[in-house]
């Protein structure tokens, strides 16, 4: 009855074309050139104002921040652990001790990582008193403590350029995340364990995997430019009859009551788990 008949296709195309450009009224997409001009001008002003406002509020906000330390550090109250080298795929080391190519990546990463610890780079660093927190709150020029690569023993890359990978005793460096102002209590040390105890023997450099308190606290990138975080090298002497086996290792920070290592959700808070599989 009053049902509208479907518009023929040609008509709707014509209508569409009319909408895109209407030669009678000079309208392009339903607006005349003047109308488009006005609307574009309006939005130019409108968004220009918003952009200025955004910039201004961001500037004000940034003014309230210190360039030295972040306003809040509650989201990182306890440090995470991380290792170097870090394999591309997850935290799993696969290498063939007789094939230099299979671990070349690890070695170059380690070398690069340790470059900043080279003695030549540590000329400005001072020797601090071991075993004591190195408080420099009142000092404007914050000094960094020297970390001697020799502390890493066989894992320093000095004697063994392959960091033990060619010998089946791969080195992995364990480091604790930098957190501004963190002062570990007690005598923190790294301890790594493997469920497959008989497959691997674990050695630590410095001995006992200890982390010296003198490297703390950290004062942040701008105040503490030369800061080097202490490292613990873990050397895995893989049992010769355990080659081809996947060995799961978990390292934890122990000995310090204020460093968490048992968080349910954060698997990297004060601990790290990785796997090593060596072939021949």
């Amino acid at each position, binding site marked *: 009855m009053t049902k509208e008949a479907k518009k023929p296709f040609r008509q709707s195309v014509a209508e569409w074309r009319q909408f895109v450009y209407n030669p009678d009224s000079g309208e392009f997409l339903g607006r005349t050139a003047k109308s488009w001009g006005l609307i574009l001008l*309006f939005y130019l002003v409108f968004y220009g104002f918003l952009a200025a406002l955004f910039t201004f509020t961001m500037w004000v906000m940034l003014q309230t921040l210190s360039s030295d330390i972040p306003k809040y550090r509650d989201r990182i109250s306890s440090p995470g652990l991380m290792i170097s080298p870090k394999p591309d795929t997850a935290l799993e080391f696969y290498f063939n001790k007789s094939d230099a190519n299979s671990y070349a990546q690890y070695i170059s990463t380690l070398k690069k990582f340790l470059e900043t610890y080279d003695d030549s780079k540590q000329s400005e660093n001072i020797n601090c008193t071991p075993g004591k927190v190195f408080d420099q709150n009142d000092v404007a020029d914050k000094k960094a403590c020297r970390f001697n690569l020799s502390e890493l023993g066989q894992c320093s890359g000095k004697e063994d350029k392959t960091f033990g990978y060619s010998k089946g005793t791969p080195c992995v460096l364990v480091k604790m995340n930098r957190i501004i102002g963190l002062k570990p209590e007690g005598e923190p040390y790294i301890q790594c364990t493997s469920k497959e105890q008989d497959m691997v023997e674990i050695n630590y450099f410095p001995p006992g995997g200890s982390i010296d308190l003198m490297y703390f606290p950290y004062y942040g990138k701008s105040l503490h430019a030369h800061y080097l975080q202490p490292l613990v090298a873990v050397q895995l002497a893989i049992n010769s009859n355990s080659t081809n086996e996947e060995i799961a290792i978990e390292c934890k920070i122990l000995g310090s009551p204020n460093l968490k290592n048992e968080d349910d959700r954060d698997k990297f808070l004060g601990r790290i788990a990785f796997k090593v599989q060596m072939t021949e």
Partner: protein
Amino acid sequence: SNSLTFCLLQFSLSFGIQDDHKLSASELEEKYGTSINKGLSSSRAAEILARDGPNSLTPPKATPEIVKFLKQMVGGFSILLWIGAVFSWISFGIQFAQGAESPFDNLYLGVVLALVVILTGIFAYYQEAKSTNIMASFSKMIPQQALVIRDAEKKELPAEQLVVGDIVEIKGGDRIPADIRLISAQGCKVDNSSLTGESEPQSRSCDFTHENPLETKNIAFYSTTCVEGTATGIVINTGDRTVIGRIASLASGVGNEKTPIAIEIEHFVYLVAGVAISIGVLFFIISVSMRYKILDSIIFLIGIIVANVPEGLLATVTVSLSLTAKRMAKKNCLVKNLEAVETLGSTSIICSDKTGTLTQNRMTVAHLWFDNQIYSADTSEDQTTQPFDQSSPSWTALSKIVTLCNRAEFRPGQENLPIMKRVVVGDASETALLKFAEVILGDVMSIRAQNKKVAEIPFNSTNKFQLSIHETDDPNDKRFLLVMKGAPERILERCSTIMINGKEEPLDSEKAEAFQTAYMELGGMGERVLGFCHLYLPENEFPDTYPFDTDSMNFPTSNLCFVGLLSMIDPPRSTVPDAVSKCRSAGIKVIMVTGDHPITAKAIAKSVGIISATSETVEDIAKRLNIPVEQVNRREATAAVVNGMELKDMSLQQLDDILCNHSEIVFARTSPQQKLIIVEGCQRQGAVVAVTGDGVNDSPALKKADIGIAMGIAGSDAAKNAADMVLLDDNFASIVTGVEEGRLIFDNLKKTIAYTLTKNIAELCPFLIYIIASIPMPIGTITILFIDLGTDIIPSVALAYEKAESDIMNRRPRNKKKDRLVNEQLAVYSYLQIGIIQSVGAFVTYFTVYAEQGFLPSTLLGVRVDWENNAINDFEDSYGQEWTKYQRMYLQWTGYTAFFVSITIQQVADLIIRKTRRNSIFQQGLFRNKVIWVGIFSQIGIALILSYGLGHVTALNFIPLRFQYWFVAVPFAILIWVYDEVRKLFIRRYPGSWWDKNMYY
């Protein structure tokens, strides 16, 4: 019943009713295997019942519940969300197969999306079911009983069990339980109005009076009412085979039009879905070409869809509509179909019945003529006195005739009811006279008792008068008083004198002339006029023992004394004139469509203002100028009274012409079938048409109309079934309040949608910037759902309670094609202006949270891949600190919460500005709508609970937020308010300007 012939012929032709009316009683007995005295045997009746089924109308075919439910699951945005859910599951499948670390996030997201669809679907289904249930309660009336003769015994049976051949007895007040061929009748009258629209009761007898079964007097139809008298008849049709049943099935053949609001919502859904899909696809392409993985791109796509779709909006619209429906129900408009709430608001033409809708549906004395003078009586609904001058002795005489020459009586036990509300046994005119007398004189029944009736001749159509003889209440006056009333000219014929100021004067030609003038004048007002006369019978000729015999009429019936005239009309409801003028100022055309006589129709139309005092019809102009009707310039006439007979011969073009060129139209003597033609004519003009109706045969017109309005009191079930709305008090004025509510909800839905759409941009921008600038994700998909289905719901419903900004009844009905619910201005203003401000405000909060934790904005750009890498647990911030993945995630969730809180805070401002579209908030009153404040507090309350209460439930990604972050976006919220006030100021200040055109939605 001339006017009905047309439609009845139609019926007969299409229905081919049987010839039962022509058969004799014995032939009928034979045909139906029954006996008039004994009825059917119970066993035989049971057999027929098994064969024919119960005597009830099959309800219109209902859509199966499961289909209704499934429709809710795929309608609106559901499809988009299903797509989102399926994509989530696909990406879960891929990730799971690849052994990724946390594939379950996507599984959950898919489940949540599916749940959202299912829950909103269930909600919509429940809402619909609830409104359907209201209607169901209507049709479930007390089961009707019928008095049947079976097994030679009278039995009360439910009318449903009647079968063809049953002998039923009916009496005044009963509903006819089936189509019945009468075999005996005593003073039986039926009200066929539900069938034919004719309001006059029609007498029924057992005589075959017309070839047409629908015109003959010996058939009574199912669902009509017996007004008075008694009758016995044979059931000849039951259930759907009755005439009513056939019309009802005809009505279901007329398709239901889509409601305007359904069209608007569809338009809106298309618009939003279009935006969602185009942005989604665009960014899918962008992210693929930016070398994101396909899987990631799909996940972005889901996010964009979720951000773009206002999940809660359709539920909100439903709630708003049902709130309005409730409000309308309180004002006596019961809405069956929720969407009809708004249809009423966009109505541009109302085709209204006269009887009962515009008028009170009861005869009332309107004028009196005695002592050569016309007096007006009060015709209002709640009259308690009559103001006209009652000092004349002529009035005393007249009142005595009115009181005594009347068979109508009040039903007992109503002494405490107002007189006008009491139920009367008797026909319409007698009822009117009885009530009139009771109002003026008080206890009529005792007056009658004091003036004992000794003889009576009831009204019949041959002599057209009613006569009774009474003893007088004066113990000293032993004369009998003969009183008579009837058709004025017949009464006058029998009179030789006329009473003037209580004195009998000879009826000379001058006085007869005065009578004629008065009679014509009253008749010309469309009123039914009755003449009254009396005679005191001389005591010597008629002693108290005189045996009056009404058959031989052994008493004088001529040379009587004429006393006066009374005229009656079904007066307009007192609220109607006001309502009609409201319609007029609201740009709604009111067309009267009635079965009544044109003169009566015109008189009522004039008195309620459908025809305004100054406008003239063609006939009026012709009369005024004293020229033939044909010479009148038809354009000059604003009003038109169209007779059904004229309408019959009209072409559609001519009808369109009338509908177009006259602003005030009355259709008189129309059959209900012509109503359908008129409705279609109006719809051809592009109008949204509301139609009122009560009869069964109104149902096609009710269905055809954009909104069919059935009468709750007088309406038949079929009409109520076909209608979208039921007027509980049958009052036209209620329609107007309904229109007001409908217009208001349209405005308020606009506000609701504008409010809801705005934050979609603030939800969408994070995704777009995340993809383009590779910053950490600012807001999570689940968080978005918490805004859409959590904090935003109550505020958007609260806008439904907003009062109108200006007198919405002073503007024209909205143009279906131009005034869209969601127009370009609304979308642009919400999306590109307020939405963008909200995004900026939320991003400021986001950057603040990150910066204060150590990630300056410059550090955040381009970090996405490393940031999200599970193996990187020494991610360095701007200060040299290192973060594990989980620490970053925790920060990211803090960002989500901050972003969420900022949107919520700015939505408070958005809610406040949406209270008005043109006026300043301060003109509207910030605190007038209390529900808005409930909305604001709920919004903030939910946000507080989510952040601080559920901040430790990991799956929800909410984090207890530092208190100051709640205030970062406040300046932007204030900006939104100020900006909108400026916008409204310019709109008010410069109407029609560029600003007005582009900024007013």
